[in-house]
């Protein structure tokens, strides 16, 4: 497709405004003024409409096709959430209104939303209190580890410098802990994909601040030793941090608080249906057990005995302070609150169950075609296979298979992550996909597997039916040219 500048024809106009009777006066110094007219595209209104309409038709989205990349990037979010977040009574509010005299009574609905969202998340996670202030998952992670640091510091226990992180963790875990000033000790996984308990035992000591665990882990497995792990870490004086990236697999079935976790962060877009396309705005709620409540960011919304809500900064001497302005991204909370109210307790449980069922269905139907490294275990909301069989037989790797999927109208799944699985293909269908969609995807994967044997060259050339063919990823990473 052409750029709109390439569609430009001299003197062509979309709108010809009437001549203004006002003489132009400006105080902008001559030296700062444009010498030539701005180089804008010269196009008609229809040119513009067609250009952007055609451009939008090249978009790939979950509204048009299946995204086996799952909640990491784009799961389907009910449209009603958007409507709620657009209600004028909410969008025109200024957060300062909640802090000025006489203000809180004018924003009771917004305060109730914040309070009730926090309460529901407490119930789902088994935590004592939740803050919605962090702007995104990684921001929440940083908040969580800062809370752990504040807790140990407050106890006068300054030697706890190390954070333990399993090697299957998301890269943001070590990054957040490093940012908070911790040293990272990686804990290897055992052959089952779980935390290696012997290695954990050896790593524990009185300098350990905590362990950051994703449950289910990034290989899509639930580590049944989690209770034992909690016990070991607590015995050594450390805290348990729950990376909520995969809470959508267990919500309504198991609560991090009951599993022994002391701090949780939740990626609201993954589990509570708040889209984060384009880099934001997002929300990364953080929940804590009783002993960490005093350290939470302020301000906090509290409920008074008469049922009204107020904003309190009292008792905040130990608070870690602000991690984001005011209450965080309020409209994102609205979407999450609307989602939880729609689903109710039963629906929350069912959404998790369906996400797990869909992933296991794909695994069951694809396990003769692709190698599943943890084949004997029931997976959670995502299943990880590899292209090792294809690679060995015909030299076709995971990248080729991902590109082949593009040609068949699918977004590619997560590839080459988790790092502990060689040539990983991580498929997360999410709870919203029907059996028909999953069956069609399975057929495409089987067809691709067949082509890897009959015509491996075609696999290296893919994609051929997309608007842009196979990209030179090395050149894109090395010689990036950005221009307006």
């Amino acid at each position, binding site marked *: 497709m052409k750029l709109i500048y390439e569609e430009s024809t001299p003197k062509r106009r979309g709108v010809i405004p009437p001549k203004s009777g006002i003489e132009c006066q400006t105080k902008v110094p001559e030296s700062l003024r444009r010498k030539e007219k701005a180089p804008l595209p010269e196009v008609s209104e229809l040119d513009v409409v067609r250009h952007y309409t055609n451009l939008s038709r090249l978009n790939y989205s979950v509204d048009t096709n299946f995204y086996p990349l799952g909640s990491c990037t784009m799961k389907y979010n009910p449209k009603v959430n958007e409507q709620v977040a657009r209600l004028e009574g909410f969008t025109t509010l200024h957060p300062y209104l909640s802090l000025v005299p006489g203000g809180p009574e004018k924003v009771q609905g917004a305060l109730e939303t914040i309070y009730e969202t926090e309460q529901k998340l407490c119930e789902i996670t088994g935590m004592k209190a939740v803050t919605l202030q962090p702007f995104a998952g990684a921001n929440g992670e940083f908040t969580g580890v800062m809370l752990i640091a504040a807790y140990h510091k407050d106890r006068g226990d300054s030697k706890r410098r190390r954070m333990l992180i399993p090697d299957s963790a998301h890269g943001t875990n070590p990054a957040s802990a490093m940012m908070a000033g911790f040293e990272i000790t990686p804990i290897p996984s055992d052959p089952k994909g779980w935390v290696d308990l012997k290695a954990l035992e050896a790593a524990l000591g009185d300098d350990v601040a905590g362990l950051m665990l994703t449950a289910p882990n990034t290989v899509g497995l639930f580590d049944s030793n989690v209770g034992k792990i909690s016990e070991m870490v607590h015995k050594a004086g450390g805290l348990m941090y729950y990376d909520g990236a995969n809470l959508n697999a267990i919500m309504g079935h198991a609560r991090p608080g009951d599993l022994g976790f002391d701090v949780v962060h939740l990626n609201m877009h993954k589990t509570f249906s708040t889209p984060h396309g384009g880099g934001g705005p997002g929300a990364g709620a953080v929940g804590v057990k009783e002993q960490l409540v005093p350290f939470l960011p302020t301000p906090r919304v509290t409920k008074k005995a008469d049922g009204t809500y107020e904003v309190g900064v009292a008792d905040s001497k130990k608070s870690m302070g602000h991690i984001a302005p005011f209450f965080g991204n309020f409209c994102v909370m609205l979407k999450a609150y609307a989602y939880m109210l729609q689903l109710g307790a039963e629906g929350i449980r069912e959404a998790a169950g369906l996400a797990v069922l869909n992933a296991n269905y794909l695994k069951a139907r694809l396990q003769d075609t692709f190698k599943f490294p943890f084949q004997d275990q029931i997976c959670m909301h995502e299943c990880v296979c590899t292209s090792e069989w294809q690679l060995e037989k015909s030299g076709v790797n995971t990248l080729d298979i991902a590109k082949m999927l593009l040609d068949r109208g699918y977004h590619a799944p997560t590839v080459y992550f988790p790092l502990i699985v060689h040539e990983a293909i991580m498929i997360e269908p999410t709870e919203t996909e029907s059996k028909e969609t999953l069956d069609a995807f399975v057929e495409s994967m089987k067809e691709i597997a067949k082509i890897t044997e009959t015509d491996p060259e075609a696999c290296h050339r893919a994609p051929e039916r997309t608007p842009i063919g196979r990209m030179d990823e090395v050149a894109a*990473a*090395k010689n990036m040219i950005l221009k307006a």
Partner: protein
Amino acid sequence: MSVPSELYYTKDHEWVKVEDGKATIGITDFAQHELGDITYVELPKAESTVSKGNEIATIESVKAASDVYSPITGTVDEVNESLESSPDVINTDPYGEGWICTLKDIVVDDLNTLMNAEQYEAFLKEEK
């Protein structure tokens, strides 16, 4: 997969060669193959001290960013600055022009904890 016999190896797929009290460090042929096309290398600072097992460099490829851990303790002497403009040399010549840095004031005893070529080859087989 090439495994030169005169080098020492780590389980994280680094190699080290010691000559005249100085150590040269790089990543193995297996490692570069697994990473795929390398696009960027974050090099250590000269004169910084490193302990065995600590991060000394970061290598980014089209697939992932990976840390390189120092096989032995010492002080960074020279860094291979040519990797800044042509990191792909690690792909084409991991044991030669693709070296990452050299260390001085090294703890020679650390070599005893590393694998020789024969052991590393056996380790690679086991990993598979």
